[in-house]
């Protein structure tokens, strides 16, 4: 225990605090040293429970090290290092700092052994991610960051309510399998679901990720959804409803991806699609299926990162262009980036020899072994669809298609190094799964062999004929033309719906307010004032008029007397004699009664 004094998440989090004070080369070296140090720390970790402390009678665990947390920590540290290299040209200190905050809190989530620690890091994740959107400093990113916070704070509050109820019910804060059996567990389940981008809850992802910085999105594609996958793996393994939630995630977003113009948004939709496969794997809940989810987390982080990096590099070189309508024919200018993009595309499409092939197929096989026929067919549809919208569409519209006339230089060296490392990793995992990710898989399951002749044939035929369909639809003019547009999604409810709610409340509440003002403030109150002001004068005049009549005061003098009286009463001025006289009368009344 003492051989390892510092958990990896604190190396990244506390180390990250110093980044804003460094500059230039020193900062780069320091930022690379942190994940390197964290990785050595990871290598020295042995399974067990470390770094505990107590808080209000609960045991806080900052280091639950087992095979599940180890595979996540491994890939999180690696992608942090890759993102540092990719972002090293960025001068903005806040962006680097936010990245480390985000990465460190994600590792904190993974290593948390109790729900309190888990929740604290879970919320820090949201803060880190929101900063990565904010630092782009455009009006749209500002709006997106606020919406991101809105959704995640709401999700976080629901999760918190669930955690408090759960701790109250069970008397323990330990984060073990929860199972859907109480209100508390449903709240926790839903809270995880928000970060996991379940259908309808997903729109924060496709809304905000394309608004983040070029490099920030590499972090974003990695941490929030994968930490949620980890949470579901721990809390709800084998929960059957997850199978159908996952199928919804894997299938529905690809329709959006086909008609979306912003290519980073296309990738955001395909991110949801890939996470859907992982959710299905957790829902099936066998050792094989959960291993499939874990393996797919690992390979997805790398190939999705690679795709986001290559589109980001194009954005960086073309001055922020990321829409299919604005790009095309860039392969000659940016061949290296183009090749990396194609490797990422081949990996996400699960071509044989690329990483998706050895990870996604585990989930497919597990679904087939569990006799989930419809699920299997839906996932096969999603597999063909992902090749279509991410595998072909992204490289085709950026690097080939029509010539956009844009002539730019190849991406800077640091970006090329980061993309190159990731591309090599995607291929290495694809060719040597037994030497790379399979030994890391956490659950007990029979060994899986992806490279059977039948599997290679099946997957190749599926992809070849998807490509054939794309080609025929494109040359036949049926493929939907790229149009500058937005497609409304469930974020509509809080973007437009919010505006309508505003108008609704404006109309109803403000008119209620106006009525209330008219009746109470302008009506009753001023009437009361008037009565208080003029009432006594009116009574006195009424009393005095008969006296004046009787004493025979002429009418013009009577009018004058009345005006005088009115004025005196309203101003509260009376001759001292009268005041004294009235005081005596009052004293007399008090004396006798």
């Amino acid at each position: 225990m003492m051989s390892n004094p510092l958990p990896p998440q604190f190396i990244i989090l506390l180390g990250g605090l110093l980044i804003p004070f460094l500059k230039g080369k020193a900062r780069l070296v320091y930022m690379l040293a942190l994940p390197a140090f964290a990785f050595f720390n990871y290598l020295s970790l042995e399974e067990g429970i470390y770094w505990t402390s107590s808080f209000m009678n609960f045991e806080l665990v900052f280091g639950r090290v087992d095979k599940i947390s180890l595979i996540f920590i491994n890939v999180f540290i690696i992608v942090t290092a890759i993102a540092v290299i990719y972002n090293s040209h960025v001068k903005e200190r806040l962006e680097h700092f936010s990245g480390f905050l985000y990465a460190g809190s994600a590792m904190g989530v993974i290593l948390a052994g109790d729900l309190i620690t888990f929740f604290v890091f879970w919320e820090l994740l949201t803060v880190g991610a929101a900063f990565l959107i904010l630092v782009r400093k455009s009006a749209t990113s500002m709006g997106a960051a606020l919406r991101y916070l809105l959704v995640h704070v709401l999700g976080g509050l629901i999760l918190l309510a669930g955690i408090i109820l759960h701790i109250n019910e069970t008397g323990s804060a330990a984060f073990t399998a929860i199972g859907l059996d109480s209100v508390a567990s449903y709240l926790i389940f839903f809270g995880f679901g928000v970060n996991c981008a379940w259908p309808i809850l997903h729109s924060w992802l496709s809304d905000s990720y394309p608004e983040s910085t070029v490099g920030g999105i590499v972090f974003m594609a990695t941490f929030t959804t994968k930490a949620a996958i980890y949470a579901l793996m721990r809390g709800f393994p084998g929960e059957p409803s997850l199978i159908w939630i996952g199928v919804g995630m894997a299938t529905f977003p690809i329709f959006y991806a086909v008609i979306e113009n912003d290519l980073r948004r296309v990738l955001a939709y395909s991110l949801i699609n890939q996470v859907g496969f992982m959710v299905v794997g957790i829902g099936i809940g066998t050792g094989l299926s959960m291993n499939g989810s874990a393996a797919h987390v690992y390979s997805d982080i790398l190939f999705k990162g690679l795709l986001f990096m290559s589109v980001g590099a194009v954005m960086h070189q073309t001055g922020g262009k990321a829409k299919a309508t604005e790009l095309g024919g860039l392969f000659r200018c940016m061949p290296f980036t183009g090749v990396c993009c194609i490797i990422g595309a081949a990996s996400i499409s699960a071509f044989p020899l690329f990483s998706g092939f050895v990870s996604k197929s585990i989930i497919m096989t597990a679904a087939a072994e569990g006799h989930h026929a419809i699920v299997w067919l839906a996932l096969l549809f999603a597999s063909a669809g992902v090749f279509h919208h991410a595998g072909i569409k992204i490289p085709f519209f950026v690097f080939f298609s029509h010539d956009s006339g844009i002539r730019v230089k190849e991406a800077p060296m640091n970006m090329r190094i980061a993309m190159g490392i990731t591309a090599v990793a995607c291929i290495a995992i694809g060719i040597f799964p037994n030497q790379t990710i399979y030994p890391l898989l956490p659950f007990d399951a029979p060994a899986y062999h992806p490279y059977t002749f039948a599997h290679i044939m099946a997957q190749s035929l599926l992809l070849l004929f998807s490509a054939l369909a794309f080609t025929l639809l494109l040359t036949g003019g049926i493929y939907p033309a790229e149009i500058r547009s937005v497609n409304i999604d469930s974020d509509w409810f809080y973007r437009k719906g919010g505006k309508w709610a505003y108008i609704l409340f404006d109309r109803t509440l403000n008119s209620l307010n106006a009525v209330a003002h008219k009746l109470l403030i302008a009506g009753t109150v001023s009437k009361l004032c008037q009565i208080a002001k003029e009432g006594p004068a009116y009574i006195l005049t009424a009393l005095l008029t008969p006296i004046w009549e009787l004493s025979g005061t002429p009418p013009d003098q009577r009018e004058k007397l009345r005006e005088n009286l009115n004025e005196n009463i309203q101003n509260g001025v009376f001759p001292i004699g009268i005041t004294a006289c009235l005081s005596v009368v009052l004293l007399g009344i008090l004396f006798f009664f």
Partner: protein
Amino acid sequence: MSDSSHRPKSARRIVAALFITCGIGVLLDFLFLSESFDKHALFEWENWPGFYAVYGFVACVLLVLVSKYVLRPLVMRDEDYYDE
């Protein structure tokens, strides 16, 4: 979009190569894998020759048609829809 005659030679070659590869793939599927070869199939339909080819093709055509003719008319708005 633009018809294929305007495309450069290399593009037409790639398309031709794709057609040929698809043909060879289906041929292999029919010749070697239909009856005699163990496909480790977990579902009956995996043994049908050409199943994956047909499924991949139909899936993609359906995906594109539904996206274009059903989803797009429902959800597409001007680019400044949310800015108004």
